């Protein structure tokens, strides 16, 4: 049977910037180096911490502490198809199948279940905050209990208004001060303001370069696929205060710039459609997730997960405001605005949503957000059952049917719009750029 499989467009493979390695390779090296540094520190008998991905790590960097990231470790483990085994181990330990797959993988690993997916030393302390989700608090408490180690916790109240109020900032800054005090006790060192400021400078530089790289998805055709950004997320999570990450992202942005000039792209297929992908990808099923899109020429040019890690701020109060925002910790008005602005900026004509069975906070708000997209943007939105780490919660066949349905709707609409001489993608009118971390104090 004639099965439509799109061929690559020959001759549009991007080339590295003159005199440099490909940015993707550089960035892979940076994450490896972060974990390598942590191992070396452990070997030297220094303290190594585990941190939640949106902990204001600048505070720990003022003490020269090495940290690694359980979420990133769990994602890598899942992508290398060892997540299910660790999920099962956690379930044998008594953790319920309904809790986040990242947490299950991490708890199994913390309890001593080995995995070769990524070498990560066990922790001497944990840094936790609940700006990502509240489940995380319990997860990190249990790690702290398993290892009998200190937990430094920062409470970010849920962002139920668009602005972060002064009172909230006061509350968070108070906790920063307490965390600094705890870190002083832990390390026996004094807080070094200069090192803290230097870490903030690098974090801002990394975020700026990351957001710039993400912004290239606005080009038509795009010089990249949103799926590339998923691969680079390890750096923005694990190496925010590392100058090597800043340099890597600057190189990545330069590479995209060159691609735009030269008409090349990492998405080497015809760009029949452009869509928004909502949620964390199903790491163990990246290929099944990507193939049906690729075969139909659907490029993902908007991903909410990626730019949400670009915090930019000036001073500690703005830092508190910036860190209080994450895709699932902002009020629905902000959540909708972020996504709709991004949809318009990046010219999409449909959306695909992962109803992530692992992540209740993320999936909980989606039906309403999805409803608003249909209404405000007039695009078809299709969701599927997935899971970022537990492959038992994703059905490839069901996913394929949903993607095919989405493509068939987009095909029809594209044809009608082209015939009427209209813009195929969401229009660019009234679009103001998304400021992912805009401190609103």
């Amino acid at each position, binding site marked *: *049977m004639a099965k439509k499989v799109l061929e690559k467009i020959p001759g549009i493979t991007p080339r590295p910037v003159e005199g440099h390695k490909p940015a993707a390779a550089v960035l892979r090296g940076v994450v490896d180096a972060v974990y390598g540094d942590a191992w070396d520190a452990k070997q030297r008998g220094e303290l190594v911490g585990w941190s939640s991905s949106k902990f204001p790590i600048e505070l720990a960097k003022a003490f020269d502490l090495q940290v690694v990231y359980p979420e990133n470790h769990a994602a890598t483990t899942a992508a290398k198809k060892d997540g299910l085994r660790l999920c099962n181990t956690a379930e044998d330990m008594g953790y319920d199948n309904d809790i986040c797959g990242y947490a299950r993988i991490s708890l199994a690993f913390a309890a001593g279940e080995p995995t070769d997916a990524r070498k990560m030393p066990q922790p001497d302390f944990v840094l936790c905050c609940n700006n990502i989700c509240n489940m995380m608090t319990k997860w990190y408490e249990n790690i702290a209990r398993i290892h009998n180690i200190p937990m430094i916790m920062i409470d970010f109240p849920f962002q139920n208004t668009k602005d972060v109020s002064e009172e909230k900032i006061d509350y968070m800054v108070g906790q920063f001060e307490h965390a600094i005090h705890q870190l002083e006790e832990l390390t026996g060192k004094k807080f070094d303001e200069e090192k803290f400021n230097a870490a903030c400078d690098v974090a801002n530089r990394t975020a700026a370069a990351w957001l710039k790289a993400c912004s290239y998805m606005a080009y038509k055709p795009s010089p990249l696929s949103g799926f590339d950004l998923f691969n680079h997320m390890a750096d923005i999570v694990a190496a925010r205060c590392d100058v090597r990450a800043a340099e890597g992202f600057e190189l990545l942005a330069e590479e995209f710039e060159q691609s735009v000039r030269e008409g090349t792209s990492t998405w080497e297929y015809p760009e029949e459609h452009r869509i928004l992908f909502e949620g964390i990808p199903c790491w163990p099923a990246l290929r099944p997730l990507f193939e049906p899109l690729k075969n139909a020429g659907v490029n993902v040019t908007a991903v909410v997960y990626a730019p949400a890690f670009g915090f930019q701020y000036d001073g500690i109060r703005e830092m508190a405001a910036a860190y209080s925002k994450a895709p699932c910790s902002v009020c629905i008005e902000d959540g909708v605005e972020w996504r709709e602005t991004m949809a318009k900026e990046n010219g999409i004509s449909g959306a695909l949503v992962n109803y992530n069975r692992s992540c209740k906070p993320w999936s909980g708000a989606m*039906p309403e957000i999805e409803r608003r997209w249909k209404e405000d943007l007039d695009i078809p939105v299709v969701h599927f059952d997935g899971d970022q780490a537990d492959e038992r919660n994703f059905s490839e066949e*069901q996913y394929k*049917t949903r993607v095919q349905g989405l493509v068939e709707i987009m095909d029809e609409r594209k044809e009608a719009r082209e015939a009427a001489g209209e813009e195929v993608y969401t229009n660019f009118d009234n679009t103001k750029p998304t400021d992912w971390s805009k401190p609103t104090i």
Partner: protein
Amino acid sequence: MSQSVYTMGIDIGSTATKGVILKDGSEIVGKIVIDVGAGTSGPKRAVEGILEQAGLAREDIQYVMATGYGRNALEIADFQMSELSCHARGAYFLFPHVHTIIDIGGQDAKALKIGDGGVLDNFVMNDKCAAGTGRFLDVIAHVLEVDVSELEELDAKSQNDVAISSTCTVFAESEVISQLAQGTKIEDIVKGIHSAIASRVGSLAKRVGIQDDVIMTGGVALNQGMVRALEANIGHSIHTSELCQLNGALGAALFGYQKYQNKAKKEARQAK
């Protein structure tokens, strides 16, 4: 003299295979339902049976379009499309004013929003659980020791609605068993089961946005008890057709005709 154009649509579902042959994109000259689906001899039997019925050979068919869960495995197909678009097209052919389709299939329940001209506008499908699907009805019928074809009649006899709260197949099964143990009449249980499915599927329809005409397709639409329960749930009257089970296959045959025509036009342009 111009020759007739025959197109075939084969809808390979998880529990049944359906086929339609269309003459010139408008006249149904063959139709078949085989009660086994993907991965069985069903698709082959459907193709052979329907050709025989129409008195045609494979070579006489200009275009074969496959749809449904097993669509990728039909060797003889020229093309395949999702059952979503096919249901939209089939229903538009049968009911030109259709704007909402509710389809309960073997393992999927879906609500489709149809734009003017019969184009698929949006859709919502059930999650991977079997709640609210034809499979659910099969399991319950088995527990009640009745055939699914008897459910409609039993529903019509019911005087008292019993509430079955769960739509999880396994939980509902035990709820039904406990109702039976309490001596609840089978017809009341059947009605309760229909309402439970209706509330589950009705919410899919509400999410996609219900607009008249509402059409129900799929084999379950043959069960008027189920249709009544859904009507009560969504507050709209629902149209069905005796061809409802063949709707996906009919849509596929119609798309096949459209593809054939496009191809013919293209060839004519190139020949000029």
